[in-house]
């Protein structure tokens, strides 16, 4: 089993005719993902890699029974694309786009709260259920099917941790990149809840980073609601306060919360061991299985 996506997931790609959209559609198809439609205004009736394109997401959903969308749309239009996706009844929207204005996301976030849809991202690598479906830009070949659920704010850090697991022969149920922006849709807590309710997920790896209080809140949630063992990692221990390090989210405000220390303490208090290195995260996970 898995969470959010599997081989029944029917994917519409928003922005399928753009450079990135086209390339990753190819990659997703090659991985075996069920990409059933594209949606690009004015390009309805065309095909990309044999996938039919529609002018609107609503048309694509109706014609091809899509259940999820992946957004490869430039930042200026990505908010609108997410609104369009959220106004259909898709189960999942994955926003890959990096650089979406924060106020656009504040508005999308409000809309999201009115729906039952999961929104991953923006500025995330997507998610993968190894051997079944990949939605996004993750390199499929490093993943392998297994019993570990992985959730991470960072893309390449996810690959690093997965690699450490896979090298030891430890596979994943689903790996979810939730994105590093200040406002994201699906949070650690949402992902933890999904993994907790997935009988095949026997252990969870959770990779956070400095900035915000999502990890602290996740720790409190784990303490109360999660029985599946969790191992954590927090990037940015050495980041100086007040400096922005790539991820818009990775700003340490300088006050009590949001630092690596407060996050690690919170996780430890919830019984979650936090590795000093990705290798140590793999050690903890191995000990759980």
């Amino acid at each position, binding site marked *: 089993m898995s969470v959010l996506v599997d081989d029944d997931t029917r994917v519409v790609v928003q922005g399928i005719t753009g450079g990135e959209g086209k390339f990753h559609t190819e990659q997703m198809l090659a991985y075996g993902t069920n990409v059933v439609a594209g949606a690009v205004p004015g390009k309805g009736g065309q095909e990309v890699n044999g996938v039919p394109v529609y002018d609107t997401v609503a048309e694509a959903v109706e014609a091809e029974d899509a259940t999820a969308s992946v957004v490869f749309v430039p*930042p*200026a239009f990505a908010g609108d694309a997410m609104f369009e996706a959220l106004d259909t009844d898709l189960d999942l929207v994955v926003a890959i786009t*990096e*650089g979406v*204005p*924060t*106020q656009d*996301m*504040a*508005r999308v*976030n*409000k*809309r999201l709260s009115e729906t039952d849809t999961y929104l991953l991202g923006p500025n995330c*690598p997507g998610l993968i259920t190894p051997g079944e479906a990949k939605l996004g*830009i*993750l*390199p499929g070949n490093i993943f392998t099917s297994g019993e570990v659920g992985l959730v*991470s*704010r*960072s*893309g*390449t*850090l*996810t*690959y*690093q941790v997965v*690699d450490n697991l896979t090298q030891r022969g430890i596979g994943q149920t689903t790996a979810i990149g939730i994105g*590093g922006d*200040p*406002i994201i849709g699906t949070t650690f807590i949402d992902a933890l809840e999904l993994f907790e309710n997935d009988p095949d997920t026997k252990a969870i790896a959770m*990779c956070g*980073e*400095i*900035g*915000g*209080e*999502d990890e602290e*809140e996740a720790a409190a949630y784990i303490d109360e609601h999660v029985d599946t063992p969790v191992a954590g*990692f927090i*990037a*940015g*221990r*050495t*980041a*100086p306060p007040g*400096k*922005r*390090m*790539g*991820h*818009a*989210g*990775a700003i340490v405000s*300088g*006050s*009590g919360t949001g630092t690596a220390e407060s996050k690690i303490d919170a996780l430890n208090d919830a019984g979650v061991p936090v590795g*000093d*290195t*990705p*290798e140590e995260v793999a050690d903890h996970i191995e000990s759980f299985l």
Partner: protein
Amino acid sequence: MKLHEYQAKQVFADAGIPTPDSQLASDVDGVLTAADEIGYPVAIKAQVQVGGRGKAGGIKLAADADEAREAADEILGMDLKGYHVEQVLVEQAVDFTDELYVGITLDRGAGKPVAMVSTKGGVDIEAVAEETPEAIAQEHIDPSFGMHPYQARKAVYDAGVDKALARDVSSVLSTLYDLWERKDGSDAEINPLMVTGDGEVIAADAVMNIDEDALFRQPELAEMEEDAAGGDELEAKASEYGFDYVRLEGNVGIIGNGAGLVMTTLDLVDHYGGSPANFLDVGGGAKAARIANALDMVFADENVDSVVFNIFGGITRGDEVAKGINEALGQFDEIPKPVVVRLAGTNWEEGMEILNEDLVTVEATLEDAVKRAVEYASEVNQ
């Protein structure tokens, strides 16, 4: 992107928020002319992007031309926490009876903006927030509706602002929210919002940070960006190249792809006893030329004694990375600083074939690469 005080004040004044008379000056004569026109006493304020300017000697009051000349002489050209002061704002000195704080920022946890009002302005508001959070009234805003007028009033009444001032302060707060929204602000603050003896309010300072991701739709603010950037030469160069770059205090240069992984590399450098010289994220899908630029940048930092190059390819391809490294290092007769490379993910094998191993040290794992780079750096320092 953080606006200078004079830029933020201009934006606020254009929107109708009362601000003191002021003029920008870049030399002593300019300061004196400005002060004459504004009328003494004036405040002379260094225009640099650092907090605590006042304590650091970047703000001085002048009651007459002699004092103004002296202050201008001191401040212009001074080094303020590493920033060179090239401009000062000459500003009417305001007599005040009270100092308020008003601000708008994003509450990440709530995923929505929050308006804040306090009667404890004029001091370090972060300290107030930590020590007496109840002294700052907060009102969360639903971004689909914007700030309702009643919310501005509520924040003002909840903060305990004098009723005679309530209308003016809530009007300033409403305007500030409007600016925050229209200008894609990440923060907009007035600290202090001074209350004069006549019961007027006036913005004695002005802070406005703009969401860089939204600059494409804020052409007027984007024009201010060049002025607003400042300080470190390497950071300016990185911004030109489009790298996420932060200069740090250590001697191990770090290059990688993806913020989380680069931060992790920094953390491991520290973990294994080294000290990171920088954060440099080449971003996703970097081609050879971009990789070469990154190496050039890190070499240009005199503090750097060794470099660790950590790439986990997703959309970034190992062969492009290897080409870029060869290109950057091929230009030297002697490699200036030892470079440790770790390649994984997409096309890493092709990359390893291309990579000229005479120029770099290759390690298979992140941990080993970091350890090796720390070792090299410590050898240099012995």
